């Protein structure tokens, strides 16, 4: 099976990281797509929590907004937004926080706020949303975004949500309870934090991707693990499930699920 896109590879690789039965706090867009693919393939009992209030959502199509009605209708329960953040996230009940980003740095810190100076921004991005609390309080965090010089940068203009801060044990010193980001899944590769430094290094290349491509698409001096694996290509049943999900979404909304 070689007929798939790099975006499909990214989504499938991210979906595989969600263990069956884990409790996942889902960001909108790519995280939501990957989390629902996991639920439809390898992890039917994954529990999806959206910040608008649905717990155990099982949507048949991808939501366009974080509060689509189908999330509520298919959920085990719907609680107020304050409760989601207070009891379920800060209370320590989330196994995996699944986030997208506008930009990420080598320590897995995320910017979704501004490009340029905060007070005179070149580009004003949407802002924090739930991400700072998810990045801080979930037991672990997965980040999914397309890789380029623009998105994988040496220095963030703004740290909206913290990963490993300045690296090493900085995150622990900040007193944050969760483990922090355990993986960044891109359309080219999978990166994981290096033991000790907590700098993200490439641990798996997607099939057909070269090291040069990854270096080219990274704004810092990206390093590679001693042993770099090759990501298993998407299998037929994974691609079928993903494409069917996208087709249902397009039919329902008249557009693809949000990629923001």
């Amino acid at each position: 099976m070689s007929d798939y896109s790099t975006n499909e590879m990214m989504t499938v690789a991210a979906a595989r990281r969600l263990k069956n039965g884990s409790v996942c706090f889902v960001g909108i867009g790519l995280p939501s797509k990957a989390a629902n693919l996991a639920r439809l393939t390898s992890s039917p009992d994954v529990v999806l929590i959206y910040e608008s209030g649905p717990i155990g959502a099982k949507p048949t199509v991808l939501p366009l907004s974080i509060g689509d009605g189908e999330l509520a209708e298919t959920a085990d329960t719907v609680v107020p937004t304050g409760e989601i953040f207070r009891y379920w996230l800060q209370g320590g009940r989330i196994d995996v926080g699944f986030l997208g980003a506008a930009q990420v740095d080598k320590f897995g810190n995320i910017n979704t706020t501004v490009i340029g100076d905060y007070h005179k921004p070149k580009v004003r991005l949407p802002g924090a949303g739930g991400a700072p609390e998810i990045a801080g309080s979930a037991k672990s965090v997965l980040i999914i975004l397309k890789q380029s010089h623009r998105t994988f940068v040496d220095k963030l203009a703004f740290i909206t949500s913290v990963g490993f801060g300045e690296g090493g044990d900085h995150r622990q010193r900040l007193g944050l309870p969760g483990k922090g980001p355990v993986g960044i899944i891109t359309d080219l590769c999978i990166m994981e934090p290096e033991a000790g430094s907590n700098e993200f290094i490439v641990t798996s290349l997607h099939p057909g991707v070269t090291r040069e491509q990854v270096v080219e698409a990274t704004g810092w001096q990206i390093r590679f693990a001693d042993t770099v694996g090759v990501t298993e290509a998407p299998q037929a049943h994974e691609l079928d499930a993903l494409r069917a999900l996208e087709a249902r979404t397009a039919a329902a909304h008249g557009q693809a699920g949000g990629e923001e």
Partner: protein
Amino acid sequence: MAELLSLREAVERFVHDGDTVALEGFTHLIPTAASHELIRQGKKDLTLVRMTPDLVYDLLIGAGCAKRLVFSWGGNPGVGSLHRLRDAVEKDWPHALEIEEHSHADLANSYVAGASGLPFAVLRAYAGSDLPKVNPLIKTVTCPFTGEVLAAVPSVRPDVTVIHAQKADRKGNVLLWGILGVQKEAALAAKRCIVTVEEIVDDLNAPMNACVLPTWALTAVCLVPGGAHPSYAHGYYERDNRFYQAWDPIARDRDTFTAWINEYIRGTEDFAAFQQKIASKHTAEAK
């Protein structure tokens, strides 16, 4: 006891220039009709509080009603940017907009604190984020029991909160269901609360534990069917995703935006007239 009023009268009487106003509703039940009425009445110098500014605040900011924006995520969900918000922040159009930026967890907690009559809220996960560096209102407090240093943020106490709900009864008791967001907290945190509803019924038939806001905790209830469009009202109508997409080119350009609000909002008497005008435009386009 809440008064049953027209939305125009409620806004005239209970929203004043310079007020801190919260229009809440998390994707669901967004009080769009109320934002239009604020524009029609030319309210100004408002401090607008809302977790997700969405189209309602893009409208108010572009129309020049806002002095300050308190928010935690300012995008057009599933589409991209809020162009009027960005133009105000990046280019000071139509005038400079002060922004006070938080995270969702922060603002949700701040509403809870406001509704609880407390001066501030406590939460954990701002450590390591740059947000406290650009928002001086995010401070720290040391737990007197464990010594843990936590974030402290001021409670939100709006002069007026406006929410949209599914039903009210004739006494003005309000029932809402589905995704509740922070509507209840925002309503109870405010000095005055206006609720627009889809319908007014004899009996709410509310299930036990349902989210009911009692009439004596509210100021005004206004019948505005469809008043949450293009967001949705669970059990009444779905989210109009195409409108959110159509908003992008309208709001992207200053002249197009101004022409749109002049024609459809300032040029209509109320939300029902707005709905008729939009519907007849769509009918004309479909021909």
